[in-house]
């Protein structure tokens, strides 16, 4: 039921996640942040089994931060995504595998290029221009396939995000209370509200 999607432009990535935290038919929180800041220029959004998400994400956050402290240098987005995938892949054949789907979005501090990685719960990873997890993927992929072009600007990106949110409001059975919209660019991570975009 979680909605997670993201679009990458040339030097930015827009990450959108819904803010509802629910179990069965009860919504426990309506302003829940599903994103985890891994470094100043890398953001991870996660969905799946709730305990696994928190445990795995905090583990990853800690390790990415440890690398930065040890090496006085951040892990690049591709290195981060590969590290996450490896951790998830080693847990896959263990007694209790993590059940977490995630999107890892980042901008490389040296080259300025953006990257978006989609990692599913089986640790299958792809570097993609746009991605989504959950039921929303069936709606949002169609919009993004139609609208996306290479090297879009931030405004064009926001226009696509607005169309995605519209289709979810119109056609998805679950009504989301709100969305966290974060943009990762060369100047870091900035949050926008649905009214700003």
């Amino acid at each position, binding site marked *: 039921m979680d909605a997670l999607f993201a679009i990458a432009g040339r030097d930015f990535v827009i990450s959108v996640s819904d803010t509802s935290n629910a179990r069965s038919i009860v919504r426990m929180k309506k302003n829940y942040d599903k994103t985890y800041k891994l470094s100043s220029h890398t953001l991870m959004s996660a969905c799946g089994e709730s305990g696994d998400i928190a445990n795995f994400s905090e583990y990853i956050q800690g390790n990415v931060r440890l690398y930065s402290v040890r090496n006085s240098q951040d892990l690049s987005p591709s290195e981060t995504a590969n590290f996450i995938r490896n951790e998830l892949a080693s847990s896959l054949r263990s007694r209790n595998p993590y059940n977490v789907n995630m999107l890892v979005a980042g901008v490389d501090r040296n080259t300025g290029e953006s990257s978006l990685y989609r990692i599913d719960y089986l640790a*299958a990873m792809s570097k*993609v221009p746009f991605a989504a997890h959950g039921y929303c993927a069936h709606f949002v*992929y169609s919009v993004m396939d139609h609208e996306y072009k290479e090297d879009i600007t931030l405004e064009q990106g926001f226009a696509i995000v607005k169309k995605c949110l519209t289709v979810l409001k119109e056609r998805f059975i679950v009504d989301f209370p709100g969305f966290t919209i974060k943009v990762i660019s060369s100047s870091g991570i900035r949050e926008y509200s649905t009214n700003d975009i």
Partner: protein
Amino acid sequence: MEYNGSAIVAMVGKNCVAIAADKRLGQQALTVDMDFEKVFPMTDRTYIGLSGLATDVKTVHDTLRMRVNLYKHREERVIEPRTMAHMVSHMLYERRFGPYYIEPIIAGLDKNQKPFICGTDLIGCPNFPSDFVVTGTAGSNLFGMCESLWEPDLEADDLFETISQALLNAVDRDAVSGWGAVVHVITPEGVITREIKNRMD
């Protein structure tokens, strides 16, 4: 094995081999990536194509890359395709009772520029044919196409045409593979890689 979808084929020609794969990554019916790499160069003259579960494709590729590099350091020479095929077979049988859900194809030229291809099943049983190997969800389709199109001693350009047509027409009849193709033709002079755009569905 049918969760992500794939189609990979390798063929032997005259002093050359070709290996080709589709580019789709799916989650059953939903297509998630149209540029997913399934064929990897292990040495200058040896390529491996991995079909099946996408997570294991990456894991096996990484593990194999480590073993091939270690081999190179210990032996102070590059691994031969036949040796690598046995290495892959061993690696997969190590996981006999909890296997990697992949079926690899190895294609390469040995040190005497003689073409070599090999396919194994998910627990490492090797198969060393002299004509072609196929794997993936479109495996049966590929068998049909290869059996009708392949002939011995095809030159590099003809081999490229043959393998491309075999792959393209096979994936068109399989719902979970397709979305473009990559073809590598390995010759003594070098490797020519071409991407083909076909029905993008």
